[in-house]
């Protein structure tokens, strides 16, 4: 590892290509922190957006007209407005309405930080897509299959747990994975409210070292690889879950 760090230093000295996130331990720490913040943000948002999707799909089947309308209104609002403005709206507009708390240093700080607001905003954004995805999956399970389970004496819970969900899940997996990949890319928006994710840390580094070109190319490659691994993993997962003779 040391040799690799040294190589980056030599590279800088000899060619001027400056990669401080390799040879400089402080910048390296920032970059690693940024990477894990991006991963953490993605995973937490993924979790909540799926929960929102499941609850929303369930509410969309509500017999109450207004419940369905509110869910539809939520979907349309979040799908047809810029996610960045949504984030600003949550962070600045709603964030300032909330009470402040006293921090350890005696100063005032908002009760919810940038990271939390990014989680809330991005989860609602991705969740709006997930509601539609889950609903279409549940609709794609034919009534006749459910009926066969009924005729065998399955309870409603068993039908939902052992028939509807496993089938719906396989139908929606490609769309869900696609949305997850988009979510990971969308976490870069958290940069705008100074959440120290990967892009933000890269910006810090290029501001200190004046090496925009290197950092920019590094960012592109990092996201290319990160998203590429994700897509590859998802495709493998889809294939592993594929039932012979089922689906196209």
């Amino acid at each position, binding site marked *: 590892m040391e040799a690799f760090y040294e190589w980056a230093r030599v590279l800088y000295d000899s060619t001027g290509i400056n990669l401080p996130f390799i040879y400089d331990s402080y910048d390296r720490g920032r970059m690693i922190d940024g990477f894990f913040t991006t991963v953490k943000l993605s995973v937490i948002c993924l979790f909540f957006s799926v929960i929102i999707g499941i609850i929303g799909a369930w509410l969309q089947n509500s017999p109450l007209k207004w419940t369905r309308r509110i869910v539809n209104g939520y979907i349309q609002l979040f799908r047809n407005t810029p996610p960045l403005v949504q984030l600003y709206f949550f962070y600045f507009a709603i964030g300032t309405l909330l009470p402040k708390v006293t921090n350890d240093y005696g100063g005032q700080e908002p009760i919810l930080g940038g990271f939390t607001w990014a989680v809330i905003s991005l989860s609602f954004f991705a969740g709006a897509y997930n509601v539609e995805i889950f609903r279409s*999956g549940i609709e*794609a399970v034919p009534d006749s299959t459910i009926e066969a389970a009924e005729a065998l004496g399955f309870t409603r819970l068993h039908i939902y747990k052992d028939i509807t969900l496993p089938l719906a899940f396989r139908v929606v997996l490609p769309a869900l994975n696609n949305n997850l990949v988009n979510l990971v890319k969308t976490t870069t928006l958290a940069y705008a409210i100074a959440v120290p994710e990967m892009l933000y840390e890269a910006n810090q580094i290029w501001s200190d070292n004046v090496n925009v070109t290197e950092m920019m190319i590094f960012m592109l490659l990092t996201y290319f690889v990160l998203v590429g691994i994700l897509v590859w993993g998802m495709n493998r997962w889809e294939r592993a879950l594929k039932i012979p003779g089922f689906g196209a």
Partner: protein
Amino acid sequence: MKQKNNNVLPVMMAPRNRQTDPFRLKAWHGVVLASIVVLASIPAFAAEEPTRASMFEVLVRWMPLLLQGFVFNVVISISAMAVGTITGAALGLGQISLNGWVRKFAWITTQFFRNAPWLVLLFFAMFLLPFEIKIGSLIIPLPDWLKAIFGLSLPVMANVSEIVRGGVISLPSGQWEAAESLAFSRTQVLWRIILPQCVKRMLPPWMNLYSILTMATVLASIVGVSEMMTLTGQALAAEGGRTDLLIPFYSFVLLMFFIYCYPIARWTIRLEKKFAVIN
């Protein structure tokens, strides 16, 4: 073993982008949205000092400027879409080229720009393009907004490339075979037989992409282009950072994008349904 068509299980239907309870935009929805804005601002409104202008007066005062900003967003989106569509169509045709190297190059380029976050690509264009280009004695300045258009057209290009490839491979191979057996050249088959049929299929995802692009134009505010979001920030600063103005101003930005993008989304769904019936 032979299988009848009805062995194909109905569950393999692709997820439909259909709504059981269509929620269409009607005039009164605007009223509802506006009243949400009003209601949401009441807590801030109550705390307001009487000497200052009410927040709606402020909003109305800034509205012309903000709307100009929005027009700029639309201009950026249309320009980036045009550039992205032309380059993306070329790249997409490259992906179905008979030449293996062209195909590989087009594929890797597409994947590269598709996997990168839009914001990173925008930064890439902002920071790495020069502020002017010299060709001999001719100096072409590259203002920020032009760079933003270029930056946003990169992901559009990659996505259009995928739409074109997807549209072409979605056609049954019988179309190729039938046309080739009539001794059409490959170019003729592609331009006269295949692409005209694909355009219909490609239109809904293309419109969807335009909608996403339009919403992404606000990213240009992060790099300082004077579009609607930037102007909103400046207006808020000019009013002395009054916190009660945040909700109405941001709501106004959201509303403008909603009014523009929602009809596109509805139209897209309608086209999808229509083409689904034809095909």
